[in-house]
């Protein structure tokens, strides 16, 4: 009969329970609201932790309250604690209160949906929703902040659609929010800027195309939207509301538990709120949701807007607002008046659920079974736990061209813990271009590798972490006929090298690619400015035209000039009229000099420069070949890595790291043995005998002697018993074996091969047992006297039998 109306002042609540934050589960059209943080109290770690707890506590609801059908199959009810199966008197009381509240509510608001107050839990026991929340502190720093926590929860939950999208399992709800996974409107395929430009050029054509496009889009949109429209506004959903105030939360916002995303309370996709709750109370929304949640005011202390079920648990708070409350109550519900005082003392019972425990494995695994597939419009996202896939794959995003998801556009795969530091693999299905991205640490310092084929001498771009390379190579681009390399930070200031190849001459002799490099037509090298040299001596670009035996040089431009010196060497070896080799003639070097200088006109200078260039040319050619070899090597390495896809394991990961695991286990074993040994040495032989004597008294000599004798004889007896026991077993085994042998000999003729096999195996086992027993007996016989002597020795030395020693001394 009682509806508890309470005004809860958030601040007071916070002070008192300091639970600091309330997780409120809003459920109406179902909503879950998580914890709210109010008040700008100085953020104490404790409070923060509680905040965390609350958030975590949310996790339970979907499992226990909302999806009983689903959880039932997977949870073994028998192992759940009693609190899951029964209700305490207080809970019963609470349920009565809730029933009462619900009845009054449906009486007063007959046209609203019945409240979602106490669904059945996995054990088919009705439980009040607030008691399903239990603030829990988890040891993972990721769960400390709402965003990563929400992300975890969303990964951890599996979405199972309600049997009836219009109702939560037990109760009926009227209003429905669109589901999180509603397809978003298709992308606007034409850029506005482009359109404008094009409109200027060809307005009419554009207009037409645009129209077509728009029609197309509309059709698409309609096709896609047709379904959700039918139930729009009728679906139910639960989500989390975080109230502003605590922990620097500046404003209220929603978190959707399935995606882990946050939404503004203004978001249009949340159509309304029926009720909300946290672990302390339950509120019904009395505001109109005609404009989605945009106009809702989340002041839970306002009893006009939010009808509460339990009077606030904060006494101090209540006293402030009590008068208002009673005033309102007087007017509204005369019935309640009498009971109010009583009700006030009613607290929300302690949560019946167990504390959430997330093992590090489960935490790392995140998703159920470590795998989760999320289907988006034209895209599919798959997630895996680290180490689940042997190649380190942790997530894969596939985008499709069409809505039916048949034509793949591109695939992105993210990897973790790869030994080759591969981080992301991007496959563009339309161009067939594959791009691998690496983290720093690849043996070849790879950063990005994009290719269409793993065959050498095809189009490919390899980027490197140039700091990790001795030669400062940043990027190497290859096509069938060229290779371009970009450098940085080299002592010789080389910045660029470009080589053109001619197709390989087919040789008859068998030769592999390595030994038959493609002939080089041209090598172009560019250099940065070397500040140590004057500009007119600092080569900016040199081109080796190998086929024409020509070398072109272009120098850097001086700061105050606009032209740069150039020089061209023709390396023809000619013979003069007398048959002598012409070493150098002025026309072998054509040069343009900005500031003509005397010494450069000299043949000797030119000759030396040319000789130098010849050597350089050889080196460059060699470099190009080296680069080609390196590419081959990289490709080989990549193939090997792809085949092996070894994963690295952190030395701190004691579960996966085999070595450290072995080590730890060995240590544990040693510890255990040590412990056993200690226990043994601590065994008190005398204790049972001393117990017979009055405690605390010193032993007389006579007593000591007797004690010793008793102890020894007892020990002797035990040794004999043990020997007898072994002997008895030995004899028994032998007898049985004999019997069996006898039986076998009698029935040998009639036995099936199976029986015979059985018999033979029995025999061998029995023989083994007998042998062992025999060994044990012999060993016992050997050791028994020694053990006896050892004990005697020990007893002599025992301080409690000091009397004994005296005598012998």
């Amino acid at each position, binding site marked *: 009969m009682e509806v508890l109306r309470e005004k809860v002042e958030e601040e007071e609540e916070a002070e008192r329970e300091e639970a600091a934050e309330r997780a409120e589960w809003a459920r109406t059209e179902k909503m879950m609201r998580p914890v709210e943080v109010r008040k700008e109290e100085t953020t104490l770690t404790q409070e923060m932790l509680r905040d965390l707890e609350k958030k975590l506590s949310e996790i339970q609801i979907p499992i226990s309250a909302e999806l009983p059908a689903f959880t039932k199959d997977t949870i073994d009810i028998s192992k759940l604690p009693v609190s899951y199966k029964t209700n305490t008197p207080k809970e019963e009381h609470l349920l009565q209160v809730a029933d009462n509240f619900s009845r009054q509510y449906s009486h007063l608001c007959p046209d609203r949906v019945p409240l979602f107050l106490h669904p059945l839990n996995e054990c088919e026991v009705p439980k009040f929703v607030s008691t399903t929340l239990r603030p829990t502190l988890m040891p993972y720093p990721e769960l400390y902040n709402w965003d990563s926590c929400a992300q975890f929860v969303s990964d951890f939950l599996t979405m199972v659609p309600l049997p009836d999208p219009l109702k939560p399992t037990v109760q009926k709800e009227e209003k429905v929010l669109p589901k999180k996974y509603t397809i978003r409107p298709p992308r606007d395929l034409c850029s506005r800027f482009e359109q404008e430009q094009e409109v200027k050029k060809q307005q009419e054509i554009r207009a037409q195309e645009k129209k077509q496009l728009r029609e197309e889009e509309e059709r698409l949109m309609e096709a896609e939207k047709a379904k959700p429209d039918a139930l729009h506004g009728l679906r139910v959903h639960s989500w989390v509301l975080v109230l502003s105030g605590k922990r620097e939360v500046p404003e209220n916002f929603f978190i959707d538990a399935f995606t882990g995303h946050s939404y503004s309370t203004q978001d249009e996709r949340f159509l309304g709120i029926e009720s909300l709750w946290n672990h302390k109370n339950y509120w019904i929304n009395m505001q109109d949701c005609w404009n989605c949640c945009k106009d809702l005011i989340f002041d839970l202390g306002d009893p006009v807007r939010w009808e509460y079920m339990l009077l606030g648990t904060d006494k101090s708070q209540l006293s402030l607002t009590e008068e208002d409350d009673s005033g309102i109550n007087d007017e509204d519900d005369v019935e309640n008046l009498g009971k109010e005082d009583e009700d006030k003392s009613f607290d929300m019972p302690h949560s019946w659920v167990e504390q959430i425990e997330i093992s590090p494995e489960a935490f790392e695994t995140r998703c159920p079974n470590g795998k989760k597939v999320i289907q988006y419009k034209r895209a599919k996202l798959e997630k895996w736990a680290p180490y689940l896939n042997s190649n380190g794959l942790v997530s894969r995003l596939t985008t499709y061209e069409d809505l039916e998801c048949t034509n793949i556009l591109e695939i992105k795969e993210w990897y973790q813990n790869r030994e080759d530091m591969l981080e992301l693999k991007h496959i563009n299905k339309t161009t067939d271009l594959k791009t691998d991205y690496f983290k720093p640490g690849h043996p070849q310092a790879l950063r990005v590798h994009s290719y269409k084929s793993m065959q050498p001498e095809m189009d490919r771009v390899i980027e490197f972490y140039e700091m990790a390379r001795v030669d400062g190579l940043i990027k190497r681009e290859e096509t069938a006929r060229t290779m371009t390399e970009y450098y940085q930070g080299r002592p010789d200031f080389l910045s660029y090298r470009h080589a053109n190849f001619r197709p390989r001459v087919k040789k008859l002799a068998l030769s592999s690619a390595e030994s038959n490099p493609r002939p080089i037509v041209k090598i172009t090298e560019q250099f940065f400015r070397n500040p140590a040299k004057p500009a007119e001596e600092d080569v900016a670009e040199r081109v080796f035209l190998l086929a024409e035996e020509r070398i072109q040089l272009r120098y850097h*431009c001086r700061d*105050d*000039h*606009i*032209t740069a010196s150039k020089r061209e060497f023709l390396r023809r070896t000619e013979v003069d009229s007398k048959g002598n080799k012409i*070493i*150098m003639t002025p026309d072998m070097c054509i040069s*343009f000099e*900005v500031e003509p200088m005397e*010494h450069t006109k*000299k*043949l*000797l200078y030119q*000759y*030396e420069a040319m*000789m130098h260039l010849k050597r350089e040319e050889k080196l460059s050619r060699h470099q190009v070949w080296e680069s080609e070899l390196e590419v081959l090597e990289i490709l080989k390495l990549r193939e090997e890595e792809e085949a092996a896809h070894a994963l690295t394991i952190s030395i701190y990961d004691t579960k996966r790291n085999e070595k450290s695991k072995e080590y730890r286990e060995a240590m544990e074993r040693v510890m255990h043995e040590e412990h056993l040994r200690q226990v043994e040495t601590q065994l008190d032989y005398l204790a049972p005998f001393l117990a017979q004597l009055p405690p605390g008294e010193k032993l007389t000599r006579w007593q000591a002697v007797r004690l010793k004798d008793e102890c020894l004889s007892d020990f002797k007896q035990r040794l004999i018993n043990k020997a007898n026991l072994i002997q008895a077993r030995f004899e028994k085994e032998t007898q049985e074996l004999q019997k069996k042998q006898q039986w076998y000999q009698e029935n040998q003729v009639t036995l099936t091969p199976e029986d015979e096999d059985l018999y033979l195996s029995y025999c061998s086992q029995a023989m083994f047992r007998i042998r062992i027993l025999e060994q044990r007996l012999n060993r016992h016989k050997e050791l028994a006297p020694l053990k006896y002597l050892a004990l005697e020795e020990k007893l002599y030395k025992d301080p409690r039998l000091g009397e004994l020693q005296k005598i012998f001394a």
Partner: protein
Amino acid sequence: MNRLCDSMEPKVMDDDMLKLAVGEQGPQEEAGQLAKQEGILFKDVLSLQLDFRNILRIDNLWQFENLRKLQLDNNIIEKIEGLENLTHLVWLDLSFNNIETIEGLDTLVNLEDLSLFNNRISKIDSLDALIKLQVLSLGNNQIDNMMNIVYLRRFKCLRTLSLSGNPISEAEDYKMFICAYLPDLVYLDFRRIDDHTKELAEAKHQYSIDELKHRENLMQVRLQDERARQEELEKHKTAFVEHLNGSFLFDSMYAEDSEGNKLSYLPGVSELLEAYKDKFVIICVNIFEYGLKQQEKRKIELDTFSECVHEAIQENQEQGKCKIAQFEEKHLSSLSAIQEESELPNIEKMILECSADVSELFNELMMLEMQLVEQLEETINMFERNIVDMVGLFIENVQSLMAQCRDLENHHHEKLLEISISTLEKIVKGDLDEDLPDDLRALFVDKDTIVNAVGASHDIHLLKIDNREDELVTRINSWCTRLVDKIHKDEIMRNRKRVKEINQYIDHMQSELDNLEYSDILD
């Protein structure tokens, strides 16, 4: 060591000998043939070896301007001379000669390796210019004073030293001493100094070295102070107000003024002088501060101007470069087209097109240049106007301040005259109380004498003030003129250079084209 040579006739370092040596040591094989064909200029030679030649006197080396390495070992040289021009020398070997003193090395600032092994040197000095010295070989000489080592402390790069075979190397403390005094040394007498020895040596000579270091530090500090003072003065000089930040001008007024000094002993004059000096100094300081401020302003103005001009030139150059790059690209492709073309008329047509391109480029570049010249001219004129205005204002203000000085002086003069005359009257009346110095009393003979004396003092003062003012005005004016001239001249130079560059480039292009034409026609 030269006994063998002693018996032989000393040789003269003449052109033939040098040529021979250069030829022998120059490039070999193919390059050698070329070199022979062309001849080698001495100034292109980088390394020269003249050992075992019985040379007595170093001579004729002045042409080897770029020489890096010179070996004159195993001769009978007695004096280091004739090396003044070889400023690029890095390595000099004068071992096994008869040198007695180190000299003539003051211009070889790049020298890193110096060998004077086996000579007759008895003292290490005259090496101050060799700041890059790394290796010094002075073995087998006659150095007998340990204190020579202290001299070597100034060579911060010195790592290798050899002194064996000198009298000092006999000393039992020889090695320790050197290690202690030259802590940066790595090799001594061709052996590496181990750390242990270094430590021992340091401990042993710590006291004297500390003292030495202290003295060096003091010297360093004094040098720095001196330098700072110099810089400060330099700064004031560029502001044309040096020595105006105190009583310097006032003091100089009285420095040559004997009458004034005498008169200051008159009763009441010293107080007057004191007040006068204070006021005078205040005005001087005003001028000084104003001068510094103005200097700062002028500097900012000049900096802004240079920056703007620089930017304009840079931008223009970028445009030029861009034009050339475009042209070259086009030119290259048309050249290759010409080479592929076989029809003569076509070739001629294309060549014509090319040369049209070249002249087009010329026009463009020249237009750019002319444009820049005009722009710069305008800017420069504006700057000139501004700077002249600033200087004019400065002079005006300084002159008005100087006028104040003169007023003060006039005022002081009147007061002094008054006192003098009244004193004269008192003396005449004989009721002067105080004793006056004799030379002062000598002035008070009659009224003319005393008035003349005071007047002379006044004239000297005014002269000093005028001189200072004139100096300031002249100097700033000449600075201004020079600055403006320089800017104009620089701009003209720049323009000439650019035009020359453009012409040169165009000529080159044109001649290349002509050659092509020529060769094509030949073909």
